[in-house]
């Protein structure tokens, strides 16, 4: 605590930040909050903080972890308020010093009174009532009354004295009065005035507007060994107990100093609580006494004495003008009445146990696991109980023994009833038969399999049962048959024995079957079967999945192939039109070309067969959808051929000529992406071009028109065009920004000089009928946008060596 308070503002803030808390500025108004926060952080991290007293730590952690935060905090603040019996202080103020002393004396006498009573402590309200009544009496008379009373019964006080004396620092001072000729009765008096007047004496000295921090500091100043204070007290107080010297300022000072303990509670007037108080006192000794937030001890004090405190505060009208804190006095009383229902007396133990919330959660998990284990064991036990004997024994009440009647009637022994003498042997063989049936059932489930690989049936026929009985029991076959017959009768009338008889309508040794209704399969076998079924179903699902995947891939491939074929068809249609128009230009108006000749012109012989379907599709397309080509039958060289005649459209002549002007040998449907020369020459003297290229990165605009571009690899064409144009500059990275409206391309060169060369080559060129402009980009910005550009080290090369984009330039 002390070290936290000693920290400077900046140090405090630094510490908070160290603890991972984003601390606001530490100012006069926030400092206390920050201190609390730091302590809470330190204690929640489990760091042994030597400085912080345990009490606030516990309180903070409780309030931090418990869901009912207000409860504990309220309790804390309640306790703190309660430890300041403001109404009393008010009264004291009005009474003045002598009255103060009188009250102290009255309380002393009160204690003595109580000590005299062997019976349980009287209600505190009643106890305080006479005490108040005595305020008007002469204090000396009071003293005289009190001392003989306490002297009369030495035994109970002695006990209390011992308990107080256990707190070692108190001992000498407490013994002192004894040596002084006072009996031990007055010993127990010593803490009482201090207790009853705990904050009373400090409070009047403060100005009403004094704030908490001052309050706390004041208390800290009082951190002096209790022993000296007590000796001070005994020196001043006890020898002169009968005199008016009690009212001297020193006495109030002493009382004020006794205040350190802060265990202010009239409950100490109850004799049984004295030892408890002594314990608390020793605890307080053990920890730094003056800590302002000793909420822990407040809790104890308050709760143990709600009623008497109530009576005091209720009987004295609270005056809100003297104490800021006492303003809430009236409202606090009802709250306090509720408090005893909460068991705060044990707060010390419970708090220390519950202060780690993970203990709680682990306990919950532990309970859950325990429950699960119990359930499993119960289930296993229930399952394992089901054996043949148990079945019979448990349900012996419901057993039906079809005993044949003496008089011959419908009953036939061994078929519908059992002779009396046949029951016992049948029961004897039952166990064996049951086991056999069980093993048969197990075999049918998990093998071993028969010769043909199938598993045996899960039942035994009557004949097999008889054979098994003969084998195991060593009976003759007739005996066995009889007993088995009897057993079957019994079993069919007692289905709850766990063996069912199948096909028993007409008894036949080969058809009547016995089967265990609920066979006990070993868990290994169950596991194996489950695993097998799981695997098979998994395999099935996988097969289904693969089939679906295959279908999907097939559909995709088919779609792709169709698209490709469509493209090929368009390609050939274009070439046909080109060819026709060029023929038309070469030969004049009346040119027509046989279809087959066109095909032979366009498709090399080796691929004619392969491309037949595409060619047919292209021909069909032209027949149907090409208005500029007319299909005719014309004799060519004495033979009628299907011919195409080119009908040049008047309006579209420019399109026709432009498409005619492009090189027909190119395999690409688009040939427009070529460099078309410079718009203006760039020299070093040019105003707009920088002499020294500042960065290696360029942004090139108007390289393409995103609305016009089609086809799959136009980006590659744009990229190639740039690379081909700037062959002398090392380009590391190119990004064609498809989404840009301006047709932007970003280029990173190996060095600034390379960028300069590229700039020279590209800026102001015509490409694809657009004027290309280039700007420099900052390298960081470039890397920010294209992080993988930073890794590019090797200069890029065009994707082919055709130099397609430069052809137009070359032609020029």
């Amino acid at each position, binding site marked *: 605590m002390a070290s936290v308070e000693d920290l400077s503002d900046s140090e405090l803030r630094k510490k908070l930040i160290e603890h991972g808390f984003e601390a606001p500025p530490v100012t006069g*108004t926030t400092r206390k909050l920050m201190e609390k926060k730091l302590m809470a952080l330190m204690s929640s991290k489990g760091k042994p903080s030597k400085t912080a007293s345990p009490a606030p730590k516990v309180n903070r952690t409780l309030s931090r972890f418990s869901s009912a935060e207000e409860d504990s905090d309220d309790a804390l603040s309640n306790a703190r308020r309660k430890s300041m019996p403001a109404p009393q202080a008010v009264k004291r103020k009005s009474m003045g010093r002598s009255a103060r002393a009188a009250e102290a004396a009255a309380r002393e006498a009160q204690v003595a009174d109580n000590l005299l009573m062997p019976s349980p402590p009287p209600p505190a309200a009643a106890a305080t009532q006479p005490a108040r009544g005595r305020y008007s009496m002469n204090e000396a008379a009071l003293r005289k009354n009190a001392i003989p009373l306490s002297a009369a019964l030495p035994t109970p006080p002695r006990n209390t004295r011992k308990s107080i004396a256990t707190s070692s620092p108190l001992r000498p001072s407490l013994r002192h009065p004894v040596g002084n000729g006072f009996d031990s009765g007055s010993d127990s008096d010593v803490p009482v005035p201090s207790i009853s007047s705990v904050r009373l004496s400090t409070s009047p000295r403060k100005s009403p507007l004094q704030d908490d921090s001052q309050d706390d500091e004041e208390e800290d100043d009082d951190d002096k060994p209790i022993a000296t204070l007590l000796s001070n007290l005994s020196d001043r107080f006890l020898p002169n107990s009968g005199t008016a010297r009690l009212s001297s300022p020193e006495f109030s000072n002493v009382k004020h100093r006794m205040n350190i303990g802060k265990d202010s509670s009239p409950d100490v007037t109850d004799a049984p609580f004295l030892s408890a108080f002594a314990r608390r006192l020793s605890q307080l000794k053990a920890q730094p006494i003056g800590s302002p937030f000793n909420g822990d001890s407040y809790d104890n004090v308050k709760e143990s004495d709600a009623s008497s405190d109530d009576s005091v505060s209720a009987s004295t009208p609270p005056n809100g003008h003297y104490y800021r804190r006492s303003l809430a006095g009236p409202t606090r009383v009802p709250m306090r009445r509720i408090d005893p229902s909460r068991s705060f007396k044990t707060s010390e133990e419970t708090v220390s146990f519950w202060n780690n919330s993970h203990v709680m959660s682990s306990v919950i998990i532990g309970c859950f696991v325990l429950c699960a284990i119990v359930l499993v064991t119960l289930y296993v036990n229930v399952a394992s109980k089901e054996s043949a004997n148990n079945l019979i024994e448990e349900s012996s009440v419901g057993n039906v023994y079809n005993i044949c009647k003496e008089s011959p009637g419908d009953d036939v022994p061994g078929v519908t009833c059992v002779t009396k003498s046949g029951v016992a042997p049948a029961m004897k063989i039952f166990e064996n038969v049951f086991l056999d049936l069980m093993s048969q059932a197990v075999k049918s489930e998990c093998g071993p399999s028969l010769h043909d690989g199938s598993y045996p049936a899960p039942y035994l026929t009557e004949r097999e049962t008889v054979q098994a009985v003969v084998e195991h029991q060593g009976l003759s076959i007739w005996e066995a048959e009889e007993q088995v017959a009897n057993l079957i009768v019994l079993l069919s009338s007692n289905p709850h024995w766990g063996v069912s008889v199948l096909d028993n309508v007409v008894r036949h040794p080969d058809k009547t079957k016995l089967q265990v209704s609920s066979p006990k399969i070993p868990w290994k076998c169950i596991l194996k079967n489950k695993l097998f079924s799981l695997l098979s179903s998994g395999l099935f699902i996988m097969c289904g999945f693969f089939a679906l995947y295959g279908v999907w891939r097939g559909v995709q491939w088919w779609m792709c192939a169709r698209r490709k074929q469509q493209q090929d068809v368009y390609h050939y249609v274009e070439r046909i039109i080109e060819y026709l128009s060029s023929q038309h230009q070469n030969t004049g108006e009346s040119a027509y070309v046989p279809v087959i000749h066109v095909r032979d012109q366009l498709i090399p012989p080796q691929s004619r067969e392969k491309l037949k379907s595409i060619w047919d599709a292209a021909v069909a397309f032209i027949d149907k959808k090409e208005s500029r080509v007319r299909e005719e039958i014309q004799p060519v060289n004495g033979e009628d051929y299907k011919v195409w005649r080119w009908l040049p459209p008047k309006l579209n002549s420019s399109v026709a000529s432009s498409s005619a002007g492009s090189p027909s040998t190119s395999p690409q449907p688009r040939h427009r992406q070529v460099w078309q020369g410079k718009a203006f020459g760039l020299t070093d003297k040019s105003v707009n071009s920088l002499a020294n290229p500042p960065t290696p990165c360029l942004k090139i605009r108007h390289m393409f028109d995103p609305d016009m571009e089609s086809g799959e690899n136009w980006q590659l064409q744009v990229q190639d065009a740039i690379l081909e144009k700037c062959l002398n500059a090392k380009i590391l990275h190119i990004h064609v920004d498809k989404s840009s409206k301006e047709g932007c391309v970003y280029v990173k060169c190996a060095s600034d000089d390379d960028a300069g060369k590229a700039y020279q080559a590209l800026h102001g060129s015509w490409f694809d009928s657009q004027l290309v402009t280039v700007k420099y980009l900052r390298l960081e910005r470039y890397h920010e946008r294209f992080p993988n550009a930073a890794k590019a080290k090797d200069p890029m090369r065009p994707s082919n060596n055709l130099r397609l984009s430069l052809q137009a330039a070359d032609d020029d």
Partner: protein
Amino acid sequence: MSTTSQKLKNFTSEPMGDKPVTDLAGVGEVLGRRLESQGFDKAYVVLGQFLVLKKNRELFQDWMKEACQANSKQSSDCFQCLSEWCEEFL
């Protein structure tokens, strides 16, 4: 906190100007007097503290409790009020 009180609405609807501290939601006569006694006489002073505590709900509520023994409802109302005002006008 499901419904916004009239006081909160009034406070967050306009700049705070020289409003007294009692105009803050959650601060009534009693709390207002306590705050005034500590020097927080105007709403903007409390706003200052609110801002110094970096709009941290936990810290602000702790401070309210410390400064005027506000309960959690009151301090939470006050916090809500100030943070909404800040969203609007800051």
